[in-house]
């Protein structure tokens, strides 16, 4: 195209016949097949590593059930802790947004301390430090301050994650357009009514994806609780793995089983999180008509961003931290 005039160097069209061929072949393979192939290939690599390590698979099979059974502890501690964390994060966020120096200062100190010290140190503080205070004060303090490992774990995780999630909640609340607050105020709503009816429900949608991620991360941090010395009844997969591994000198095999268990667990919860996000998308996305032709990603495979972004038309701008992958071109 165009006359054969001399072109400056750099404007010569680049040619890569090899990659052109690869792309041409690639275009003919459906997206799903390619995605599945990637996962299969990666699992093959893992399998090779597995085989190369010469694990005692018989031992793993014999003890897997004992290790896996502890997963209810993980879920329990994580669920209870995330609930408390959400409450703390909401209070912290409102504090950080407050013009009143008292809540602002409190929230600032809270986030600074609990984000600034390691989680394991905090857990020991609650388990050992608080207990010592209780014993020294005596009486009723002793009963309430000497916590079990699980109780100290829940307390520590709640406070720690609440501090991190304060930022998530604050950003979520601030993402609600100011006009919404104004409209609510113009109707004569009080601060509380405004928050409850207008701001927080809208902030909720922005807050859910990163909160879901925090929950999934927390499920793995619950393993730290076992370092405080939980009982057998309250032993999570990590504790069970370390105990069995230690006793039979098979720590690596035991920990691999525990790792797989955590992986499956996070996979399951990631799936449910995506469902929740899609359900929350109503009211923000036009669901009339078929999904946009470019979005051929299948909805059922792990790792694919869920639907809910299909269709043209008006969509309120919501930041999507993790799931906002664009549809693949072509």
């Amino acid at each position: 195209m165009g006359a054969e005039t001399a072109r400056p160097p750099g404007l010569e069209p680049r040619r890569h016949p090899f990659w052109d061929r690869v792309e041409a072949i690639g275009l003919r393979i459906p997206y799903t097949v390619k995605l599945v192939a990637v996962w299969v290939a990666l699992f093959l690599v893992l399998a090779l590593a597995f085989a190369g390590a010469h694990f005692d698979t018989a031992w793993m099979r014999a003890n897997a059930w004992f290790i896996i059974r502890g997963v209810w502890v993980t879920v329990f501690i994580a669920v209870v802790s995330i609930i408390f964390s959400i409450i703390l994060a909401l209070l912290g966020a409102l504090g950080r947004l407050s013009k009143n120096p008292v809540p602002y200062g409190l929230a600032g100190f809270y986030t600074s301390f609990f984000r600034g010290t390691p989680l394991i140190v905090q857990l020991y503080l609650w388990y050992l430090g608080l207990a010592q205070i209780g014993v020294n004060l005596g009486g009723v303090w002793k009963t309430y301050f000497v916590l079990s490992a699980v109780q100290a774990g829940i307390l520590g995780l709640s406070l720690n994650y609440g501090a991190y999630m304060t930022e998530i909640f604050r950003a979520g609340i601030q993402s609600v357009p100011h006009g919404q607050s104004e409209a609510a105020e113009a109707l004569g709503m009080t601060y509380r009514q405004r928050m409850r009816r207008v701001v927080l429900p809208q902030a909720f949608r922005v807050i859910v994806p990163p909160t879901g991620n925090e929950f999934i991360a927390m499920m793995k941090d619950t393993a730290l609780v076992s370092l405080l010395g939980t009982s057998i009844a309250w032993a999570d997969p990590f504790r069970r793995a370390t105990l069995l591994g230690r006793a039979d000198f098979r720590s690596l095999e035991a920990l691999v089983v525990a790792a797989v268990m955590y992986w499956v667990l996070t996979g399951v919860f990631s799936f449910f999180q995506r469902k929740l996000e899609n359900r929350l998308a109503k009211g923000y996305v036009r669901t009339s008509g078929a999904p946009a032709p470019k979005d051929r990603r299948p909805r059922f495979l792990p790792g694919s961003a869920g639907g809910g972004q299909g269709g043209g038309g008006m969509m309120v701008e919501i930041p999507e931290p993790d799931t906002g992958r664009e549809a693949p071109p072509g």
Partner: protein
Amino acid sequence: MRKSTIKLGFVLLAAFTLVAAACSKSKSGGGGGGTAASTPAATGMCATVDQNGTDLLAAVCRAGVLRVATDPAYPPQSSYDETTGTWQGFDIDVATDIAKRLGVQVKWVTPAWDVITAGHWSGRWDLSVGSMTITAERAQVLDFSTPYYYTPAGIAVQKGSPITSFDQLSGKSIGVCGACTYEYYLERKLDIPGYTPTYVIPQDVKIVTYDTDSTAIQDLVLGRLDAVMSAVPTLQAAIDKGKPIQLLGDPVFYEPLAAAADKSAPEDPTSFIQAVSDIITQMHQDGTLTQLSMKWYKTDLTVNPLG
């Protein structure tokens, strides 16, 4: 509305988990995996104790339960068999017997080892029967009973290792469990009251600490260490489980192992640990300890090697 059913689901889930927690909650340091029932044979020592006293012994007798800290994965001293839901081991049997002779039930508690040796248990459990060596440092925070057995400490190397004598350990790496007497021995800082150890290991060994003996042994097998120092029964257990290691030479020292109570316990532990000591002396005299030692170690470790 769909949204409110999701919210309702969360609320129910939260309520359920909180209720489940309340039902299975226990305030002591982690709760026990199960209680070992002790058949109340003759009247225990508690029968002669003033139950209204304010000391730890009275408190234990009043409660009818002895809370014992033990390690759930330290065979053959102590381990938890999940298929039967029972505790097994030398330390387990000794502690069970102590409780029986006191006239109370046993409740097992499983805190972390360094939490036990640090003292300041905050009243979470009463007694530690965990093959703990009496050292002067520990004696500052814990009250020890009479030793109930003596364990030899030894060195293990890889099977077929070229190291055949202690001198050849010079400059080599030795793995030990952290905060264990073996670490102090290698550092030549071992302080056992009434016992002066002879240091036969070269001073220039590289000491590598681990959270537990088992991890150190696994590293020895992998070749990351040249040797491991630990209790001989532990090393022997590894050999019996097929680990390619072998003992090097004779035991380098003998440690007296005793039960311990917390010096800073909310109730005064003096009379309590005295009672435990008396019971242990009894167990030495009537042959119970020897019997248990033979059962678990195939050899009598309860005789004081120092006379």
